[in-house]
């Protein structure tokens, strides 16, 4: 089922047929064909408070986008809208292909074994062997039959990633999925996400509050402020990246100041 997107405004057609990029005719290039997700004039109000105010955003096919912003800036609201979890959002939302989400807490269903968490709602043929292949990819082949409550934090988060990726989504939404992991586990999972992204090629929207994480992973970094995309940078440095790459250091300072954090050192 393609993109169950809420409340499209006039003109936008949501739920384009889920055609793999490779299957499309090369001459069918139109602006929308290169975009995995297009957001136009997205507005979300909670009572008197306007969290998203006419936000525009385009995510290209296979593009890794990181979304930064102070708390309350609407990062998670945007992600929930793209995930189809928000019925009350106004504006245009168009996602080509399916959407999968990995949440901040792994949100595994505790009464289903890890394998069954992956096959839940999976309509592809032979779901069990697909699930086991996905678990092998995240290094959890031997935990397929385990109960979720017996997993460590890192294992649970990897299982959650596998549950999202086994659906072969066109757009993968990551809602701060690394924030609760310890520093060492986080490094491992960062590498894993990049490997999975390279292997499967979904467009990724990563919501994070960690500037370094965004710099290490993303093609493009957005800063959300005032309900819109206030700043935008393209990160050209080749992967794997090191945090002391000169480009990244320059960008880091710019990002921090955009987020309203004064840089360290003497003023």
């Amino acid at each position, binding site marked *: *089922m393609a993109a*169950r997107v809420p409340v499209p405004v006039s003109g936008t057609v949501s739920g384009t047929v889920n055609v793999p990029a490779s299957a499309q005719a090369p001459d069918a290039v139109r602006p929308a064909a290169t975009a995995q997700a297009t957001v136009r004039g997205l507005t979300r109000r909670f009572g008197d408070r306007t969290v998203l105010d006419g936000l525009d955003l385009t995510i290209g096919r296979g593009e890794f986008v990181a979304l930064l912003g102070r708390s309350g800036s609407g990062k998670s609201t945007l992600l929930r809208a793209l*995930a*189809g*979890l928000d019925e009350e959002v106004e504006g245009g939302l168009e996602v080509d292909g*399916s*959407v*999968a*989400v990995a*949440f*901040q*807490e792994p*949100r595994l*269903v*505790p*009464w*289903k074994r890890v394998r069954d968490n992956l096959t*839940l*709602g*999976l*309509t592809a043929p032979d779901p069990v062997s697909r699930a086991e292949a996905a678990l092998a990819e995240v290094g959890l082949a031997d935990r397929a039959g385990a*109960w*979720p*409550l*017996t*997993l*460590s*934090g890192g294992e*649970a988060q990897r299982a959650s990633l596998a*549950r999202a990726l086994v*659906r072969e989504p066109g757009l993968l939404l990551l809602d701060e999925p690394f*924030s*609760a992991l310890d520093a060492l586990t986080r490094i491992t999972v960062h590498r894993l996400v990049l490997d999975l992204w390279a292997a499967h090629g979904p467009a990724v929207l990563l919501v994070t509050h960690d500037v370094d994480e965004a710099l290490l992973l993303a093609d493009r970094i957005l800063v959300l402020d005032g309900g819109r995309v206030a700043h935008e940078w393209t990160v050209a440095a080749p992967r794997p990246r090191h945090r002391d790459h000169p480009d990244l250091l320059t960008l880091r300072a710019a990002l921090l100041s955009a987020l309203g954090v004064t840089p360290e050192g003497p003023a």
Partner: protein
Amino acid sequence: MSVVELQGELGGAVRAGPRPRPRSATARGPRRGWHRWVSPLVVVLLWQVASASGLLPARLLAAPSQIAATALDLVRSGTLPTAIAVSLERVLLGFAAGAVAGVGLALVAGLSRTGENAVDPIMQMLRALPFFGLIPLFILWFGIGETPKVLLVALAVSFPLYLNTFAGIRGVDGKLAEVARTLRLGRAALVRHIVLPGALPQTLVGLRQSLGVAWLALIVAEQVNADAGLGYMINDAREFLRTDVIVVGLLVYSALGLLTDALVRLLERRALTWRREFLSR
């Protein structure tokens, strides 16, 4: 919140490792076993002495030895097995009817707002009725045969199951419902994979409560013109001042209650293997 959960998991992992606490628990185990039998045995012994010395006349309370002998006689003559069978049938029928009604109504109320508005106010009002007080009405409506007894058990059973199942359904983690939406589960799949299993622990709490109250309802119902069953055996014994038979009947009631409770515990262990408290065993 997730940090707390993860810390909890880490804590669980640590607990699973070798630690002095489990060892001391097992060391205490056998000692605790016989220590706990001492005071009940002393009471039974004092009771026997009081009966033998004539301090406690048999028309008030028979001696433990007399009760044991009577129990044996009642089993041999077939009186007790027959009585148990009759009472067990009443409880099983009543429990089945009450469970179907309680769980069924909880599903109706739990799975839709319309259902809740239709069912819940009525159930909350009926819950306030002291259901043993309904016995006179039940006798007028259904006579003094099996029907009012079975119905009283059914009524008693349905409320704990209704209340707990309803609360269980409504208490299912909304975050898991969101996961179900992002996994494109339809409504039927959501109910089957998320809502019902999520409500099961609370439903089993309701099951234990309802089985407890089922035996209680049976005891009360069997005081009313029973012509067979444990209640009849006890009432009949009262006519002849047979305190030994009365005590045997009471002991059987409690044994059956303990037995059904053990069955539910077993069921819980089977159905809730995924829970932390069962995983650590």
